[in-house]
């Protein structure tokens, strides 16, 4: 029974991974691609690790997988924010359909 629940978690995570990577291919802009992949792939990988916890139970492998989930949730958004900030400061243009650019307004207002 616990194996079947774990396999269902793993399959949901694989679906999120596939949708995130299709977003990496299809979307028009660096910021859109970052916004698609950093959420979908992080949540998908956390779901795969949660399936591992459910299958293995609370032995060493399960507790290490829980630690890995906490670590991923803490670090992946920080890396994504740093990448977006670096891309904006290196002068990557937004795509043509973009509505507003709050970071640019903020920088012009402060300086």
């Amino acid at each position, binding site marked *: 029974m616990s194996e079947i629940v774990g396999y269902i978690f793993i399959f949901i995570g694989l679906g999120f991974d596939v949708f995130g990577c299709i977003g990496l291919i299809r979307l028009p802009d*660096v910021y859109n*691609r970052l916004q698609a992949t950093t959420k979908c792939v992080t949540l998908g990988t956390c779901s795969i690790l949660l399936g591992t916890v459910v299958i293995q139970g609370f032995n060493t492998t399960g507790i290490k997988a829980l630690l890995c989930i906490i670590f991923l949730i803490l670090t992946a958004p920080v890396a994504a924010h740093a*990448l977006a900030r670096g891309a904006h400061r290196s002068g990557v243009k937004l795509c043509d359909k973009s509505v507003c650019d709050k970071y640019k307004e903020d920088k012009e207002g402060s300086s």
Partner: protein
Amino acid sequence: MKPKFLSWFLGLLAVSALLLFASIYPIPSLLKWQSPFLSHCFFILMICFGLCLIRLMRGPTPADRAVSIDTMGILIVGFCAILSIPTGRNWYIDIAIAWALQSFIGALALAKYLEGRGFDE
């Protein structure tokens, strides 16, 4: 309104067909695993990895390549987590934690390089 809904529906259908095909199609297994479902999961993750490699090859700006490399680093954690189930060895999760740490530091270094600052500021 209507063609947009139709294209969304067709895209969802195509993605579901791809997932179903990848989970049923018999692949030549490298290892004799006890569960065939996990080798199909491995196959689907390799499809995701190929999509990231396409973006890595034809990204117009360096920021696209940095995003693709960061995504691949998170996918490898999923690879290690899936490998730890049929083999029953718990050091694959150790590799996953170390790889997540290394990918995080690599992404921060790439972001600092994109900003144009030095590494010792």
